[in-house]
């Protein structure tokens, strides 16, 4: 067909960015499934289980051809009654499928001792230029040692996402070359003290890293060297000594934006050093029971100092109050220059706690303050209030949210203090716990509305019911 200037134009869809014109061939419409192009039918097949997708091979010649190049393979031995059925299925699927690139390969199964077949399957995925590899392997070995994944995995150029869940130690080969790996999640994996493990954590394209319940007991310094890392998540359940108590976490990438740490921060010199690019941090740190308050105060101070550049901080650390008696620390408390959103997940937060007041005073740009598990004022003084009032209360604090509100006297007093001191407040949300009626009769809304407000623009909302819309938590 002819274009605007009488030149020969290919009768396919063209976009001329200059003129924003689309020169299409014909209206896209079809009445029958088989009129859809191959790429779309493959997408549809991708929405089906591997078994259902492969079964379409009997429909017609075209479907037979399509089913041989389905984009994803998903094998889960839980879907099979017998092991032999599962083995037959996987082997059948792998020999059936052609060598066209594989988008996703997902395998979840028990691995019997000496089983090399699983590694053959993983190799088959790597050979097909797999982009997303998801392995959940339970290794049935009497004496838990190491499981060796095929080395091809660590040299797979096409790999973009890798999820490994394997409750055994595994060794990373010395040659690690994963130039396109963007997302790495490791669950329950045990690492031997090994330089190669750090190579894995230093992949050049790595953007998201998640270590969940991983055991790296011997490692003294965990270097997370990925230069382009944006998100880091470390999760250790309570009482689970995953990382060595004295382990130092060093994040080298200067582009990191988000950090989630959930674990036993507080053993020895467990440091997390973060670059200033960090925007968001969620810290859930369990109080090490046997430590003395002074050491805890030092530690939480160090922790907060490390995160003083963030914009959004969520904090669960019961030992915050250990700083109350430490004038030296309170006097040199860091300024949270960029902090706009602060959320406390501690149960409950004491408004009359000095450390909290200092922290609020050192957060000049704070816009949103959330007390996800309640807020109380325990001064036992009539008419107690914040003195001095933190700067942000006078200039920037626009939103306060209190969850799990039980309407006890000391909670109502805390509400009174906030309403009475926050001069530019626009929204005050209270999510009431189911049990608030045990403490308060009459209209709670009326009571709260009567409290003197420092801000004339402040709208008060009460929310009831199990789910708190703000923190998606069931009370």
């Amino acid at each position: 067909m002819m274009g605007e200037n009488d030149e020969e134009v290919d009768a396919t869809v063209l976009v001329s960015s200059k003129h924003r014109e689309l020169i299409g061939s014909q209206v896209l419409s079809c009445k029958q499934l088989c009129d859809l192009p191959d790429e779309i039918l493959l997408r549809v097949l991708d929405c089906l289980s591997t078994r259902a997708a492969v079964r379409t091979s009997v429909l017609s010649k075209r479907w037979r051809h399509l089913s041989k190049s389905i984009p994803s393979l998903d094998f889960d031995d839980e879907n099979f009654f017998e092991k032999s059925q599962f083995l037959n299925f996987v082997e059948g699927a792998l020999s059936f499928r052609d060598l066209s690139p594989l988008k996703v390969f997902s395998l979840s199964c028990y691995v019997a001792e000496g089983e090399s077949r699983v590694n053959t399957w993983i190799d088959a995925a790597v050979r097909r230029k797999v982009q997303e590899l998801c392995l959940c392997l339970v290794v049935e070995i009497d004496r838990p040692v190491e499981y060796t994944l095929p080395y091809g995995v660590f040299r797979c150029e096409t790999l973009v996402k890798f999820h490994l869940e394997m409750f055994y130690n595994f060794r990373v080969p010395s040659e690690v070359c994963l130039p396109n790996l963007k997302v790495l999640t490791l669950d329950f994996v045990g690492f031997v003290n090994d330089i190669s493990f750090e190579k894995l954590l230093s992949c050049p394209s790595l953007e998201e890293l998640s270590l969940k319940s991983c055991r790296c007991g011997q490692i003294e310094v965990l270097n997370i060297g990925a230069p382009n890392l944006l998100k880091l998540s470390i999760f250790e359940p309570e009482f689970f000594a995953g990382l060595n108590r004295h382990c130092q976490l060093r994040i080298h990438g200067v582009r990191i934006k988000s950090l989630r740490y959930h674990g036993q921060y507080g053993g020895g010199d467990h440091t997390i050093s973060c670059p200033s690019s960090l925007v968001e941090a969620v810290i859930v740190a369990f109080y090490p029971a046997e430590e003395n308050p002074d050491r805890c105060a030092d530690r939480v101070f160090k922790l907060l100092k490390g995160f003083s550049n963030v914009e959004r901080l969520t904090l669960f650390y019961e030992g915050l109050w250990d700083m109350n008696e430490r004038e030296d620390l309170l006097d040199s408390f860091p300024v949270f220059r960029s902090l706009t959103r602060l959320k406390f997940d501690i149960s409950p937060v004491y408004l009359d706690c000095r450390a909290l007041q200092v922290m609020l005073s050192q957060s000049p740009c704070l816009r949103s303050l959330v007390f996800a598990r309640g807020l109380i004022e325990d001064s036992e003084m009539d008419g107690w209030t914040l003195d001095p009032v933190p700067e942000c209360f006078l200039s920037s604090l626009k939103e306060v949210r209190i969850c799990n509100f039980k309407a006890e006297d000391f909670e109502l007093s805390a509400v009174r203090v906030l309403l009475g001191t926050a001069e530019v407040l626009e929204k005050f949300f209270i999510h009431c716990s189911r049990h608030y009626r045990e403490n308060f009769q009459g209209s709670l809304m009326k009571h709260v509305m009567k409290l003197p407000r420092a801000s004339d623009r402040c709208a008060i909302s009460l929310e009831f019911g199990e789910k708190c819309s703000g923190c998606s938590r069931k009370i």
Partner: protein
Amino acid sequence: MSSSPPPSSAAASPSCPKKMIALRSSDGETFEIEEAAALQSKTLENMIDEDCAGTPIPLPNVTGKILAKVVEFCSKHAEPGVDDESLRAWDAEFVNVEQATVFDYILAANFLEIPTLLNLTCNVVADMIRGKTPDEIRKFFNIKSIFSPEEEEEVRRENHWAFE
């Protein structure tokens, strides 16, 4: 009683009016869509210039009937403050149409590169396939199968493991 706070990256500040984009279908109908909604389409995103006047973007591959629905979908998905559950219910209603219309939605979503609509519609078709026997699938979609007896035998051998 209380609504969730608006997302921190709102599409337009309250003082400026929302930017509208005009789209023209194959049969000459014009549709207006908010910029935030139009950005759901990667194709449109690439074509929206900052400084261009509001001349309609011609989409000769999409009819007015379908384009109207696509605009509706994108606008709904760009609405702030809609919770997941009601959005899902709305989506289910949106695709509660006859087969041929679903296919037209797929083609439009594919052409305009709207991932949410494409995923939704492909899943609808997958739902139609799931749970049916091969014969039922052929009947439902009017698939003509022309396997010779040898070919049929070969196919059976090839994937017997999928039917065990």
